[in-house]
């Protein structure tokens, strides 16, 4: 036991002390808020800094009136198409909108001419405005006052509340659950891949540099393997915890800064009804807070940690076994399929089945089978999952990682001392059977 502890310490310190660890740990969480910050900064800059763009409207129906926004001003000076073209070419206008005479039932031939490619938002702004105008006109022609239409327009939102046996009501929102399941599942997926690879690299390093022969004369191969897996896992947890703290503080900071800019922002969105539609209205914020407070966070965090570690241990042992069988990382490719296929299946399953319908039978099986459960179960946990399923999945995962560790131990103890032979799956199987 003492010796495993020594190995854990070495593996942990050797990695944590590296400069690359420090860099990756500090820079990665900066990327997310930094990108967010840059976008916000650019959009704020855009608004204030850019000159107003003037767009000439050539309307042969003499019917459309477009309201100018902060970015675009529309001029109606009764020019014809040719004059307007000239204005654009000479740089007097940013572009011009040509609306030919058309039948209201079938508006065709509307063209925007500009000296550069217009942005998506400009085009959709124009389209929405024109559509609204045409619709209003047609309603008016069929005898309905557009004002009435505006008055009867209603917003419908369904709140979803789960009722448990004791009658406790929990407000929930599939979007929030989706996001949580997505985030936790992906984190586990990335964690397994990144740190599993580190285990493999570490084993290969010890094998190819022949350190392993000295090591196993001092301790059992199994102790060495376990110490390495646990030590690297601890590195991962450390990195993860630092990220949580850093992202937490940075996001609070960035959000705080954005919060001060908010009035301007919302004003902009309100002026543009289409944009506002994609963002929850202010009334919903309280509701989202309610949904978030309704989620069993303790349960979510605990099961996240469980599947995080369980999945890592299950695959970590497999990565160690692969590393022990080969002599260079490039040779490892042939043995990677048993690891990558279930991981990718779990990842795909998370999107295709679990997050869309957490209670389907595909979701059930994905969250029960140990190879896929660490990723797939997180998708279900965020929605709430029967405790029987959770217990079954967790016990199978424990059994699963005990099994892979045991199998990997058998491959590992022979593999690390084998040189010069290129093993196949058949030889691996032989090693499993022959070792005591």
């Amino acid at each position, binding site marked *: 036991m003492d010796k495993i502890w020594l190995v854990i310490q070495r593996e942990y310190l050797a990695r944590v002390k590296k400069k690359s660890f420090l860099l990756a740990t500090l820079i990665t969480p900066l990327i997310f808020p930094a990108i967010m910050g840059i976008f916000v900064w650019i959009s704020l800059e855009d608004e204030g800094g850019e000159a107003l763009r003037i767009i000439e409207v050539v309307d042969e129906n003499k019917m459309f009136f477009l309201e100018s926004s902060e970015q675009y001003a529309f001029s109606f000076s009764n020019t014809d198409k040719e004059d307007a073209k000239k204005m654009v070419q000479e740089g007097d206008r940013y572009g011009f909108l040509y609306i030919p005479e058309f039948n209201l039932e079938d508006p065709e031939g509307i063209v925007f001419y500009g000296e550069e490619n217009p942005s998506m938002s400009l085009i959709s702004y124009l389209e929405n405005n024109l559509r609204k105008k045409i619709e209003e006109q047609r309603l008016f022609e069929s005898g309905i006052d557009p004002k009435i239409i505006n008055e009867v327009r209603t917003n419908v939102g369904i709140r979803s509340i789960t009722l448990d046996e004791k009658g406790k009501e929990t407000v929930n929102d599939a979007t929030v659950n989706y996001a949580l399941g997505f985030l936790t599942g992906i984190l586990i997926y990335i964690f397994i891949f990144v740190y599993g690879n580190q285990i493999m690299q570490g084993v290969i390093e010890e094998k190819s540099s022949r350190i392993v022969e*000295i090591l196993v*004369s*001092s301790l059992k191969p199994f102790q060495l393997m376990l110490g390495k897996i646990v030590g690297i896992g601890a590195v991962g947890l450390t990195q993860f915890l630092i990220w949580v703290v850093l992202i937490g503080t940075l996001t609070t900071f960035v959000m705080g800064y954005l919060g001060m800019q908010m009035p301007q922002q919302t004003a902009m969105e309100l002026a543009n009804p289409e944009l506002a539609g994609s963002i929850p209205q202010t009334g919903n914020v309280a509701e989202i807070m309610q949904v978030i407070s309704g989620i069993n966070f303790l349960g979510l965090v605990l099961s996240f940690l469980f599947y995080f570690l369980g999945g890592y241990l299950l695959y970590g042992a497999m990565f160690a076994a692969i590393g022990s069988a080969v002599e260079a990382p490039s040779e490892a490719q042939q043995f990677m399929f048993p690891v990558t296929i279930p991981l990718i299946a779990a990842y795909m399953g998370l999107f295709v089945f679990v997050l869309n319908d957490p209670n389907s039978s595909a979701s059930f099986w994905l969250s029960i089978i140990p190879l896929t459960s660490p990723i797939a179960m997180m998708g279900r946990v965020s929605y709430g999952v029967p405790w029987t399923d959770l217990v079954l999945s967790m016990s199978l995962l424990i059994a699963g990682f005990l099994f892979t560790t045991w199998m990997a131990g058998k491959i590992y103890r022979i593999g690390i001392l084998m040189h010069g032979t290129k093993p196949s799956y058949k030889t691996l199987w032989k090693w499993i059977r022959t070792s005591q």
Partner: protein
Amino acid sequence: MLQIKNLNKSYGPNKALSDIDLHVPKGVIFGLLGPNGAGKTTLIRIINQIIEGDTGEILIDKELLNPSHISKIGYLPEERGLYKKMKVWDQLIYFARLKGLSHTDAKSKINFWLDKLEISSWKEKKIEDLSKGMAQKVQFISTIIHEPSLLILDEPFSGFDPVNAELIKNEILELKEKGTTVILSTHRMESVELLCDQVAMINRSKKILDGTIKEVKKSFRPEVYKISLRALKELLPREWIAKEDEGVYHFTLPLSGKTPNELLSELMQYGQVSQFQEVVPSMEEIFIHQVKATQHG
């Protein structure tokens, strides 16, 4: 110190060791000889408890081999390895502690050895920044840091320049003086004759000979004499195939059933005998002879 009885080990259909019996007394340097692939590494790995034998017994100080012996054995494998990115100091601490030393003990012993081999200034250097010979010194310290009573060295001199090889040789002899038993596995026979008290030779999984160097040489005395003759009275028999050098004839003759005295008096009839010496084979010759003999047999 170390007793091996009827040790067998197979890898699938291939026999790596068959019925090996060895006795290594305390405080000797024991040469373990044999060509590549003879089974030396397997034997060493079994003593180090890296792998297990199939049948047979191994006793250390009359105790069946068990994990508590790990701290008594120091092992320098033929293929050396250290963590390239680790500092000399950290690395030595790690290996010492794996062998069961406490942190304080490890520190003082490492300091002692770093001073002794005059490499204290490398403490904070990473292995990748050291030359091969420097790394070998570090490796040697890591092997003996826990003061093992049994030291197993697999080709200890390979990779050393002559100066450092001499240094290591003297360290080995010093350890022997202090009572350490050393098993030296090698196929460099000159170091065997220089260092070893006893030897055992393994070929094709079997022990083909063992004993003290003297005993081995005695049993391989081919009863051949090296002769130089001067002032010829009669012509030498043709079958003697002599080489002439300024009137002196050099050749070798087997006893062929005669006593040395009988042979000598026979030679005296041919002239003045200036040299009459029994040919004693070198360990190298015995080694080659034995390996060939078992291969043909």
